[in-house]
């Protein structure tokens, strides 16, 4: 059997001394799309940020293997260059730095790391034109400063646009649906679906089942109180839609954690 792309083992993590993740275990194989759902405060976003290496999140126990390597030992930029991509829930604005300049630097940093030649301006613009179609991003947005003055929907599109350019092996989408109206959601989800491939795995973190109508996962996990309380197929989403999270909270986590 081939090595899984990502193996999270007994992951514990704290923020400002509060333990948020209390033993998460999750295995993602190449090409799989995993949805992670859960009530507010269950640790969904924390999991996304710990995987990306955001400062302020302290891992207190456990292990994460990515392509067989110790992911937690890598700097955030190294993780990114190795193909871990986080689509942010709240993309930050970078005044004064144009989107296209930022993206070129990012793509070339990744390419350099992978031993590929860096793109020159012309090559990169051609790539931008091609990838912009995926999320129907306005070329004007490409020239403007990163996320500055973007609407909520434009910011999320920009995240998926970046994902398309950076071509990650593991994409973590952190509540990509939040703040999107139904049309924007359709466009963004459509973009994500176009980027699905046997070489790319995804972890889709979401609060609502709604997104999963558009991005249909291979597996679904319910995170409750810092642990995966239940795992299943996409049909689990409908069950959650029906019953809410409360019924899972009553089950002993030990039973549910065994996937």
């Amino acid at each position: 059997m081939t090595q899984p792309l990502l193996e999270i083992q007994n992951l514990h993590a704290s923020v400002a001394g509060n333990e948020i993740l209390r033993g998460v275990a999750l295995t993602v194989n190449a090409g799989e799309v995993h949805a992670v759902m859960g009530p507010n405060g269950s640790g969904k976003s924390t999991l996304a940020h710990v995987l990306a290496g955001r400062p302020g999140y302290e891992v207190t126990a456990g292990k994460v293997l990515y392509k067989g390597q110790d992911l937690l030992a890598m700097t955030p930029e190294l993780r990114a260059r190795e193909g871990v991509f986080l689509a942010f829930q709240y993309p930050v604005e970078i005044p004064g730095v144009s989107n296209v300049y930022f993206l070129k630097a990012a793509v070339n940093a990744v390419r350099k790391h992978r031993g590929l030649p860096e793109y020159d301006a012309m090559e990169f613009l051609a790539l931008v034109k091609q990838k912009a179609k995926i999320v129907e991003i306005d070329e004007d947005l490409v020239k403007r400063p990163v996320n500055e003055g973007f609407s909520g929907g434009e910011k999320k599109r920009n995240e998926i646009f970046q994902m398309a350019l950076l071509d990650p092996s593991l994409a973590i989408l952190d509540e990509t649906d939040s703040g999107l109206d139904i049309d924007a959601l359709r466009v963004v989800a459509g973009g994500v679906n176009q980027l699905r491939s046997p070489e790319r795995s995804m972890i889709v973190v979401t609060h609502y089942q709604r997104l999963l109508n558009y991005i249909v996962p291979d597996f679904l996990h319910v995170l409750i109180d810092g642990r995966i309380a239940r795992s299943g197929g996409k049909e689990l989403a409908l069950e959650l839609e029906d019953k809410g999270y409360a019924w899972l909270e009553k089950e002993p986590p030990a039973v549910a954690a065994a996937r």
Partner: protein
Amino acid sequence: MPTQNPSASTESASILELTDREYKAGFVTDIESETIPAGLSEDVVRLISAKKNEPDWMLEWRLKAYRHWLTMKEPTWQNVHYPKIDYQSIVYYSAPKTRKDAPKSLEEVDPKLLETYEKLGIPLRERAKLAGVAVDAVFDSVSVATTFREQLAKVGVLFCSFSEAVQNHPDLVKKYLGSVVPYSDNYFATLNSAVFSDGSFCFIPKGVRCPMELSTYFRINSANTGQFERTLIVAEEGSYVSYLEGCTAPIRDENQLHAAVVELVALDDAEIKYSTVQNWYPGDKDGKGGIYNFVTKRGACRGRSSKISWTQVETGSSITWKYPSCILQGDNSVGEFYSVAVANNYQQADTGTKMIHIGKNTKSTIVSKGISAGHGQNTYRGMVKILGKADGARNYSQCDSLLIGDRCGAHTFPYIEVGNSTAQMEHEASTSKIGEDQVFYFQQRGISPEEAVNMIVNGFCKVVFKELPMEFAVEAQKLLGVSLEGSVG
């Protein structure tokens, strides 16, 4: 420090002397005895003047300045702090001293400095010169300087050292020296007037558009014009000149106190563009050492529709005290000030401009970008003054501060005095901070934190950089990155 042998300067500004001077730099032991002891007195001023073989009027001017200086007090209003300067411990004429103490080869130079040259991509043969190595590293600059001089002479542009100008163009010097910054102007300018070592003189005759950017870099002894540099640029009617001062490479200097004076005069329809990259030693990361840079720069837009534009990138010095200003005397004249000032580690910068509107329909633009990092303190201090007769005067000011980390400071003191009700004034200011979340966003896209800060800072400074001559702008960008290294994480 003048590198030239003062007695040689009598032989007029021939190419021979130029060459001579350059080669002399390597073996100056014979003039070592000419170093004068530390301290300042009337005798010292006389001695400096004598060594430069100056005419009486020049000596008189120096003495007037010196006597006035004795009555003055060092200013304390600026937002910088430093131990008291002992003016009697300074050597005011010490050309050979640096030679003697200079490293014999690049191997003796601080490896940190060499590392910086590497990062800035300074050509190897230039590194030795910049580091003050006592060998002639730059042979081709002699011919470069000569070629440029010939080219300039053809169109009538005078460009030479200040000392040469005193010898060869006394009437011009007499006419304009002190006409913008009088010898009594301020403590540091007055000190400079008494003891100035050397500097640049530049004269653009009527109707001439200077065919190239004039740079101190092309003037052979520029790297050693010393701690009391004096520059005078005169642009006659309808002429244009772009002048570059400094260089992006850090220049090694033994002198802690620098007090330079720059005077610009623009007559009718003339334009002077003056760009500076200041990168003197800023001290180490604990704030030890570093240059105190107290500079007086002022331009007079004397003629109608004249224009003076200052652009500065200030990354060096432990203390920067500098307010390049414009006196907008002629009707329709224009003054501009574009500035990027960096204060990292324990650097302190108190810089800005003064725009004095005297003539009608005068216009001024101020764009100041202050960057503070580490324990750095960055102050913008500016004054816009509209006098009573300046009908239709306009000013636009923009002062932005960028903070990196939470131990640094940014301060803004904009003074506005309006004496004419037709004036239009606009002032915008902002303060922002490079946030951890911004840096993480870059990192998550594969970009290192250093590069992230670079990109944000360059974005912040873009409007100023685009005022610099192209090649300079690229260097300035790189320099900024090096100056801010280690400011995150």
